[in-house]
């Protein structure tokens, strides 16, 4: 009987380990499927493309992870990307802003955007969903008013930044993305602010009673999210060279999807940037590029993509339920 109990326990344990690492396993699985379907997918070029194109959404998703961890949401990141890039583009075009200062402008606009969200949520006490839905339209509206919805072209200097490579190998967007992931991971794990972020997401009332300045922590999450959305806007524009009126539209959902695919809970308190959001962002891009390499019908691609995201989130919810069930204490140990 002892042996049977031991086996049952270890089987339960393996299952728990498997379930805890679903994002990683899913990632490997999808990678394998596309690899089998299309040899082209396995080339270095396609890897580079995946990570490079995942970088701007990844950066935005890292910011989103901060907000999600506090059990809030930021719907305005797409508009933030747009407005940041528009302001930088117009300043370059009409006021002769030196190109190297463009990223600084993007970060500054992103910061301002984040501050507005933070104030709306913590001072005006508007719930995040509504507050950021509001700033979504304000940001988009401002951008359209500034550009009269005419596309803004960027000088070659900007796309040159996007095309640069570190040591001549790693594309700059990827470098920035990985750097952000590292900083964010350290911030979340190694600083008091990071730990308090998790605490606020777990139980905001308890956090208040524990003497945590919850408004500051939540506000800070929105500010970080805003800054990273501005940076994401720049990284994206540095690859495209032009922005039209639809730039950044709907990107908030890609960012949320990347974070959630990486195991971040929409209810707060659970999730990570590394490996979580990093994997999630790359996974989404991997599917996009995988579908192209596997020559799936162009019009079917969005459907397949949606199906895969849906499946991943479904697996996640099953996983959460299973984990709750498995971690529950058993009252009696059944004899085999």
């Amino acid at each position, binding site marked *: 009987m002892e042996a049977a109990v031991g086996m049952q326990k270890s089987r339960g344990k393996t299952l728990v380990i498997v379930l805890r690492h679903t994002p990683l396993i899913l990632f490997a699985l999808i990678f394998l499927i596309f690899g089998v379907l299309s040899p082209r997918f396995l080339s270095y070029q396609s890897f580079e493309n995946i990570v490079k194109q995942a970088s701007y959404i990844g950066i935005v998703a890292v910011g989103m992870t901060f907000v999600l961890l506090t059990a809030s949401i930021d719907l305005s990141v797409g508009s933030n990307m747009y407005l940041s890039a528009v302001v930088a583009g117009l300043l370059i075009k009409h006021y002769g802003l030196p190109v190297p200062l463009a990223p600084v402008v993007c970060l500054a606009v992103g910061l301002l955007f984040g501050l507005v969200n933070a104030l709306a949520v913590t001072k005006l006490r508007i719930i995040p969903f509504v507050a950021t839905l509001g700033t979504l339209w304000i940001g988009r509206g401002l951008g359209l008013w500034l550009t009269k919805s005419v596309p803004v072209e960027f000088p070659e200097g900007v796309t040159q930044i996007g095309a640069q490579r570190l040591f001549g190998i790693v594309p700059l967007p990827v470098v920035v993305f990985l750097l952000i992931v590292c900083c964010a991971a*350290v911030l979340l794990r*190694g*600083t*008091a*602010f990071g*730990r*308090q972020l*998790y*605490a606020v*997401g*777990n*139980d905001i*009332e*308890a*956090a*208040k*009673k*524990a*003497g*945590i300045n919850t408004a500051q922590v939540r506000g800070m999450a929105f500010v970080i999210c805003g800054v990273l959305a501005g940076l994401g806007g720049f990284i994206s524009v540095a690859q495209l060279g032009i922005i039209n009126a639809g730039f950044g539209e709907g990107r908030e959902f890609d960012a949320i999807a990347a974070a959630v695919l990486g195991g971040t809970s929409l209810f707060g*308190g*659970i999730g990570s940037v590394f490996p979580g959001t990093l994997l999630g962002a790359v996974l989404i891009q991997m599917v996009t590029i995988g579908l192209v390499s596997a020559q799936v019908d162009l019009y079917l691609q969005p459907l397949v993509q949606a199906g895969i995201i849906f499946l991943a989130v479904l697996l996640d919810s099953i996983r959460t339920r299973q984990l709750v069930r498995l*971690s529950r*204490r*058993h*009252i*009696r*140990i*059944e004899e085999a």
Partner: protein
Amino acid sequence: MPELLLQFEGISKSFFGVHALQDIAFVLPKGHLLGLIGENGAGKSTLMNILGGVLQPDRGGMRLRGQDYSPRNPAEATEAGVAFIHQELNLFTNLSIADNLFIDRLPRFGKSPFINKRAARTRTRQLLESLNLALAPDTLVDRLTPGERQLVEIAKALSTGAEIIIFDEPTTSLTAGETERLFAIIQDLRRQGKSMVYISHNLGNVLELVDEIVVLRDGRVVDQGPRDDFTIDTMISRMVGRDISQIFPSRQSVPADETLLEVRGLSQPGIVKDIDLTLHKTEVLGLFGLMGSGRTELARILFGLEPFERGQIVIDGVVCDGVSVRDSIRRGMAFVTENRREEGLLMEATIVDNVGLVALPTFASAPPARLLRARGLRLAVTRVAECMRIKSGPVHRTLAKNLSGGNQQKVVIGKWLMSRPTIFIMDEPTRGIDVGAKYEVYSIINDLAARGAGILLISSELEELVGMCDRIVVMSKGEVQGAFERDEFDRERILQAAFKGHQAHQRGGQ
């Protein structure tokens, strides 16, 4: 004469014009353990929230070590050396013990923002060791038992260098063994010179533990003095302001032969095994067991909240193989949950919304519109509130969270009364409520039985079951270990049955 540590000086506080506290004045000497008792709504929590900086008094003040003490928030109270261990623990389940202990002041490397995790771990380990708690500092709080969590809260209080520790009902979710361990630690802390305020409805514990007792009633101090001046009877009579000749109201009915609920061979792997149970009309059937014996899980299976693999549940002669909550309600079953704050009540909703919840469909107008007849609902709820003696403001404006524990429990029971069920499953219906409210809940149970309902009463207080039930079924390790008729109630034998299967594993553990 020991040094005066804390003085309350004429504290008053009202909420919406209702006096919660009036002219509270007493002192807490250094190194003393003070028992604060009173019915729910007497003002204990309000007073302690003022001491802990959660609320501010309207009038009056406090002096700490002779200095004026008026904390504007919990952080200032902590700073001044006052720690408040709430009834609902304030731990973050997604974080480690070390993170929880130091969340508001994690040790850092010099002035850098980076946490010195090694220092946090070492200090946590020391604190845990001082409480004889063999846990790794990195353990997630999620994995701890309620008893361990309680001790982690104490470790947290100690880590702030608290000199005054407030315990609000610390034993409600602890097993007997964990409670004893907690008491030993409290005694230990007193020897170290800590002052403590201990709030509990378990008067036996209060009498065993404290040096002095302060009795609150309707927001006033009605009695105070050294412990030896009190007995449980005098404590009760001071708390309620009248003599309660009996703790349990007398039963007015005897069980009928008619069977309401029958359970045959009910099993769910890992949870319960071969449960047989019969509940008759007008019967109060007790279900006793230690924490983790499977009583709550059985109740959840019966009500359809959890699945079962084998066996049958027969309600009114109709066999149900699998049950859903909606089926259970339709068949006349009601479930008063153990955890009313989380499961039984919508805290942010009014009494009408809460009480009306289950019976809403019966208050809909004719199809196809099916609009809610609000006035009819309000009248019906008011009737229930009156007959349950719920003390509150207008039922359609008072929020559940503003009610005292006893009144909240009445709302939970009232919710089910609206749909006129015949089978009640009540899981710990009197947990955390005061003697007066308990008596009223017992009377309600008796009334229900007299009107033909069958009640399955789950409790970890054996006295309560012996006082209330016609029959007691005892569970241990997910199995029924014995059943006792009223005339053969014998506390020792019942406890033996409840401990069955435990001795082999944890000999001498408690």
